[in-house]
């Protein structure tokens, strides 16, 4: 786990139930004690709700401002908005996903981390959508916290991980309290266990954590560079083919600036209807807002249809997707 993200120490890696829980841990444990009026929490317009709602909530609880970095029409962050955001108050947190789960956009986290540190803020990275698809190096990213989850990288659900800088983790109050996270308990006072146990209260999901480790070994053995290259070929194929279909609009950046995700709409047909018919054609896609409602608002749609590729996807499946979309259009014509 430590090696997978190139963390300096295994003590900085905390097992959680999910990436969501990992981000809530930071928002509560770090946010409640470090945010207040005059402070600014910065998120982006393409965050997953898991890295959006906790910050919105904690900002409101503490009286901090909640600012967002807008995206352009390609679904890429408009970094020129940062100067204006910096004038709003003390920048304390910048939270961003390394890869957008809806558009596949690879975000400039290194730049954001540098900007955050320039302003004395911490950089929180949601890597749930990135970890299965590309190498993660927390030291190269220059972030302060990074969350990811097991179920998106071939592992079981119910397991996630949080990496955090040791000095920050040591200063923070615990999130969940109970067994395992204590050093000693008495009627008068309780002291906390060392890292990472201080943040691992209660019986862990033992089987899931083991499966998480096996999944990481498996994905690492296949090789993240190979996975990334494979997905890229499929994305290029899919974007080329879908781009030629009349009435199909692809969201997000060009293929070389995204991972293995193609989100699209079929003109005049609700994504759920698209997905239903594709499902019968043997093509599994996700339809909905993908837990990114602010992004849907920005794109001007209620939902999108999303094709996701991974190490098991093959070119024939892209062809079936294209044929399936033609079938959808024929059904509704």
């Amino acid at each position, binding site marked *: 786990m430590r090696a997978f993200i190139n963390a300096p120490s295994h003590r900085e890696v905390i097992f959680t139930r999910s990436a969501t829980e990992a981000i809530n841990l930071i928002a509560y444990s770090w946010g409640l004690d470090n945010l207040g009026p005059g402070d600014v929490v910065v998120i982006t317009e393409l965050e997953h709700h898991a890295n959006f709602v906790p910050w919105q*909530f904690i900002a*409101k609880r503490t009286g901090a401002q909640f600012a967002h970095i807008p995206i352009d029409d390609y679904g890429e962050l408009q970094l020129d908005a940062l100067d204006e955001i910096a004038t709003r108050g003390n920048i304390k947190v910048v939270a961003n996903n390394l890869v957008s789960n809806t558009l596949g956009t690879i975000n400039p986290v290194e730049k954001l981390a540098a900007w955050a540190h320039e302003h004395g803020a911490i950089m929180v990275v949601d890597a749930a959508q990135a970890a299965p698809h590309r190498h993660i190096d927390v030291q190269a990213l220059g972030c302060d916290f990074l969350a990811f989850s097991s179920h998106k990288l071939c592992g079981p659900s119910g397991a996630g991980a949080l990496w955090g800088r040791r000095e920050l983790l040591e200063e923070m109050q615990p999130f969940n309290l109970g067994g395992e996270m204590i050093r000693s308990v008495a009627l008068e006072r309780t002291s906390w266990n060392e890292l990472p146990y201080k943040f691992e209260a209660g019986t862990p999901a033992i089987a899931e954590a083991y499966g998480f480790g096996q999944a990481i070994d498996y994905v690492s053995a296949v090789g993240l560079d190979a996975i990334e290259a494979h997905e890229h070929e499929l994305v290029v194929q899919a974007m080329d083919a879908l781009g030629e279909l009349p009435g199909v609009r692809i969201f997000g950046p060009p293929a070389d600036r995204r991972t293995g995700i193609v989100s699209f709409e079929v003109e005049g047909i*609700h*994504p*759920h*209807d698209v997905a*239903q*018919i594709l499902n*019968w054609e043997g093509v599994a896609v996700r339809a*909905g*807002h993908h837990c990114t409602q602010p992004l*849907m608002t920005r794109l001007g749609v*209620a*939902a999108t249809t999303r094709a996701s590729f991974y190490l098991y996807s093959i070119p024939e499946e892209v062809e079936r997707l294209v044929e399936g979309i033609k079938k959808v259009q024929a*059904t*509704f014509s």
Partner: protein
Amino acid sequence: MDDLYREVILDHYKSPRGHGLIDDADAQAEGQNPLCGDEVTISVKFAADGETIASVGFEGRGCAISQAATSMLTELVQGRKATEVASLPREALLDEIGIPLTPIRLKCAILGLGVLKVALHKAKGTPLPEEWQGMGGDDLTFG
């Protein structure tokens, strides 16, 4: 398996019955299916007895199932009494739709019926069992 989009559903989707809201409606409600973004607003005009549904109209947007099911609903409830519709089980509408639905699509299918029950509850005080509550768009924002 193309049953779901068999002609009758596509026909209702493309040419919805009861489409358009009633100007001087006696009852009206709107609701959303937050998972899909489906939206439906339903308005009702009662007959002189104040109980019988004389006409029912809707507006909405969303997937074919949600909109076609609401269109079918307007035909189903026309001429029925408010109390009767308030206790109308979802199966009555699902039988009309006539094809198996997954749990997620089921919510699309019964959105209109739930909204109609809310409208009747607001206008006539008809019972609104728990399973139908929360479809009236309760605002659960914080802060």
